[in-house]
């Protein structure tokens, strides 16, 4: 399991477009993906869940990937949260 807190650096926060990119990417991996913010945990493969977390730029979330490809998943998904993609 890879689990780390990350800061949202994406310009507009994790809004509809980055969130949908995140979900599309998350679905490519076998691992389960979860995002946790202020004690609320949602599936990283659910756009509605992610949106309800209201991840603004500068907020901190915990990204967890668990499964066979957890390392690759974490590396790729982290990029979207940190606005490098």
């Amino acid at each position, binding site marked *: 399991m890879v689990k780390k807190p990350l800061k949202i650096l994406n*310009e507009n926060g994790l*809004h509809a477009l980055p*969130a949908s990119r995140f979900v599309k990417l998350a679905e490519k991996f076998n691992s389960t993906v979860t995002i946790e913010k202020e004690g609320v945990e949602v*599936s990283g*493969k*659910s*756009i*509605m869940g992610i949106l*309800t977390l209201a991840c603004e730029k500068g907020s901190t979330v915990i990204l967890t990937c668990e499964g066979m490809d957890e390392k690759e998943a974490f590396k790729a998904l982290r990029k979207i949260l940190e606005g490098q993609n």
Partner: protein
Amino acid sequence: MSRERILKGIAVSQGIAQGKVFIYETKQVEVFQIPILPVYLKDEIGRFDRAIKKTEHELRNIQKRLNYELGENFAQFLDAQVMMLSDKAIIQKVKQRIAEEKLNAEYVYHDVIREYAEKLGASKDTYLKERVADIWDVGSRVLRNLLGLTHSSVVEIPTGSIIVAHDISPSEAALINPKSVLGIATEAGGRTSHTAITARALEIPAVLGIKGLIGKIENGEKVILDGDRGIMIKNPSAGKIHFYEIAKKKVLELAKALSPFSELPAKTQDGRRIDISANIEFFSEYTHAKKYGAEGIGLFRTEFLYLTRRGSPTEEEQYRVYDALAKRMKPCPVIIRTYDLGGDKIFSDYREANPFLGWRAIRVCLDELDFFKMQLRAILRASVNKNVKIMFPMISNHEEVKRIHLVFEKVKKELRAKKIDFDEEIQFGIMIETPSAALLSPHLAHQVDFFSIGSNDLTQYTLAVDRGNEKISQLFEHFHPAVLQLIKQIIDAGHQTHIWVGLCGELAADPLAIPLLIGMGIDELSMNPGSIPRAKMVVQAITIPECEEIAKGALNFRTPLEVKRYLRRNIHRKFPGIDKVIK
């Protein structure tokens, strides 16, 4: 016979329509709780699956059409809607609850969606709050499919209708069929709303922002919609009907008579070429520009990129639109104007008392460099097509131009370092639309490759008149001697420094102004596509020496009325052929 009534709104798309009112309402879907017998639970879940599939299919079709109209990849916001629709967490939850609670799919789905909508609605973030509308847009589509309700869809509107609605959602606006819809009138919306953009793209007359419209009008009623004046006429008198029938006939006849000119070059009798280009607002309008014979895009307003969404479009999204436009217009030039809106459109917490004299256009860009550089990079990348020029609006002093150059060079350097190609010779122009820039034009000319005179704003700022204010709009006059003198100074300043000078604004399309502007030496005229055939016809009827003579005399008057009277008289005498296109 009831009395005639005129309903006023905002004119957003030109033309006249006579037809029957079709009141288009999106009704709230009603959902009831119904227990399901255990033996039917499997069917109920199957029904839910089919509704999701059907809805996805509908959304994809809408997306195809929007992408076609607004440019490749523009309807990405629908991707998000499709993802909301096919969100596994939601689908699973609904299925599970149907099975456990033994209730009907509509009820459970509605309940689950409401839960998410409420969570989002409670968010402090205004952007997220607005996504609630997206969720319900998707949600009610699914519910209607579950309930077997036909969508009260714009697709099924009878031929010969004028749509009357409170508002039309972007996904619905995209489905409007220009073959059956003659006109659009709504209570909400303005010049830059999705409905307005769609109406202009389809060349359907539209008047938006008519207050209390729906209460004043009935289904099936015959009305006249005047998209030039921004009015809807209820119970038109016989006289009005006659007036509009004649007006419509005249417009059609004139368009027919002028259409051959769209294919001819804009060359004066004595052989001088004048560049006639098009002002366009969004990507798909390039087809209109071509149809009417534009020799380039003289002004590509990039505002729609910012207005049809929240926040700034990414570099990639912008690049795709600019690149596609440049490719479609090749080898004709495309002049892309950078961000020309108030700061409030991007930085939503920003408000000011006097927006037209405030933090807007280049002033926003020079303060928000990351935002500005993103657009510059996108434009530069599209310039590999070799036909892209860049233009900066709202310049009012020398320092601004200097600072733009510094930023622009820096962006170029960064691109070179990354080995990203762009046109090293890209032309750099500024809009002259403030009196200060006009008066400083002899100095500014040394810093740029071209001037484009924004005659609408130049008039507004020179005369200190907001044309949107009905009480004073009669003071707004393009032919004001003060405005004409500034235009003359700008053209002279440009030519002394050997740069070209264009004009984009309503004046460029006015048959009364064209001989005058050409006499003053203008090199390019850029106008809305529909006016191009008429402008070409005027250009072909005139000769340079006579225009110069007209221009010389035109600057000696005290009032706009005197100027116009003088122009009419002289054009009539020298070029009688133009008379029939002058109002």
